[in-house]
């Protein structure tokens, strides 16, 4: 019986993805595999162009021996999981108080105009998507944004141009 389940699990993800998820599982007590769900969803999302399909969430559930609904609950609760396709570069701009009073609206307008998209949208070529985010804890560098895993601080429209042009 065990071997059947193990065999099924190897078919869920590639060996590399499984190794990354297993690193998360190893951090928690053996009987608390579910603790690895947040890490696992992030690993899977990063390997799927930045978003999670229902099928992928079901696979995570199977891999961690969780009911699918418990995985959906997590994936819909936390703002960093994306449940529909996003751009290759997800641009997250903070508009909370410290950024707002340092003219984050100018940054947002500039990006919207430059890329022709608003919050929650993806450019036609799929390269960029734009997202409004809450305080990212870098208020000393306001206004700021995050693209992928990287923070960019003390933004001006010129700096934003240089950053976007420097991306692949």
């Amino acid at each position, binding site marked *: 019986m065990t071997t059947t389940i193990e065999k099924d699990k190897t078919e869920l993800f590639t060996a590399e993805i499984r190794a990354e998820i297993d690193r998360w599982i190893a951090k928690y007590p053996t009987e*608390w595999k579910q603790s690895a769900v947040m890490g696992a969803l992030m690993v899977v999302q990063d390997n799927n162009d930045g978003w999670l399909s229902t099928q992928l969430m079901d696979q995570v559930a199977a891999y961690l021996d969780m009911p699918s609904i418990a995985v959906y609950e997590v994936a819909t*609760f936390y703002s960093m999981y994306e449940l529909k396709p996003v751009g290759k570069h997800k641009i997250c701009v903070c508009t909370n108080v410290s950024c707002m009073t340092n003219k984050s609206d100018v940054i947002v307008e500039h990006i919207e105009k430059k890329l022709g998209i608003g919050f929650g949208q993806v450019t036609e070529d799929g390269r960029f998507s734009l997202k409004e985010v809450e305080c990212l*804890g870098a208020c000393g560098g306001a206004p700021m944004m995050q693209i992928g895993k990287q923070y960019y601080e003390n933004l001006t429209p010129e700096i934003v141009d240089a950053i976007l042009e420097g991306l692949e």
Partner: protein
Amino acid sequence: MANEVCLRTLDLERPWLLEQYQSRGGYAMLKKILTEKMAPEAIIEEVKKSGLRGRGGAGFPTGLKWSFISRNAPGQKYVVCNSDEGEPGTFKDRDILRYNPHQLIEGMIIAGYAIGATRGYNYIRGEFWEPYERFEQALEDARNAGFLGENLLGSGFDFELHAHLGAGAYICGEETALLESIEGKKGQPRYKPPFPAHFGLYGRPTIINNTESLASIPMIMEKGGEWFADIGVKNSGGSKLFSISGNINNPGVFEIPMGTPFSELLAMAGGMKEGHKIKAVIPGGSSAPVIPGEQMMELNMDYDSIAGAGSMLGSGAVIVLDESNCMVKILERMSYFYHEESCGQCTPCREGTGWLYRVVHRIETGQGRQEDLDLLDDVASKISGKTICALGDAAAMPVQGMLRHYRDEFQYHIDHKRCMTGVG
């Protein structure tokens, strides 16, 4: 006196490296505790003496929190660090994680030894990828040096520590929501009691402390609780990291003694931008009621001084606003935040935060009604104290603060459908 505790290695090159931390005496205290088999009670006593209060915002005495754990109760216990830094305006723990991760690790091991816990987790907010990677590297280096794992330095004490990565949810800064999140669930706060000291992570006795609190422990142990207490003032022991941002010239993180006049902190941060005038200060993160600039210039940065002005020191996140800010717009943005971040569990918060936002939004956009001001007061007071966790209060307090000090601006918005002259 600055940068004496958590940021004491900041002047070194690549201060996050193990050898750099050790060049300043890092891990020496842990070695001493383990080789001398110091009595755990003595450690808790020292932390109590230091007057250290929770640096995440609540200000609960750290030593007292530790003493709630029955050290000799059988079974697993946990030390959890709250690095889910999300209170708008706060950006200090990010610097500890980036620049002095080993001091946090050492503090967590000492905490584990003191309460009899052999496992720990550091919950780092999901957006903090760079700090997470640096912390993970520090963990690996500490493990290789024998500071983590089994039988540390031959003492018979085991301690294992891992980093958990969040995924974007302000509510996970609430300690029981954070525990739920580590358990792989939605971050919804638990009813208390039972408190985490009795029923914490995986149902086991757990202490949860903020990053800055835990990173302060090695220095408190090295130099003594009294030394730490004496840096600060009565009821506010030690130094504190202040994150100061807004309309100022040199925003950043400053580690200074508790009780330092706000005017000095503002001067350190380069003063107001381009000769602008100070209008208002949010002294402890966006949940802390606003204080008018003139009044703030007379206050000191400690728990009692800020509380005496009707606000709170919170996480030490100081947002400085100049005269160009419309306070209706500021409150609109803050109310939007709490509405976005309410976990949805308690009706007063789930419904009330949205209601507050919609009312402030219509005032801001020129649709305000005369009865809206009383309505805001009414809704805010009906959220306060009626929810499982403090997010509801955090949403209500800024509303009450704004109406207390800037009611005229709200009234002007309702009467004239625009900001007061010279504002916004």
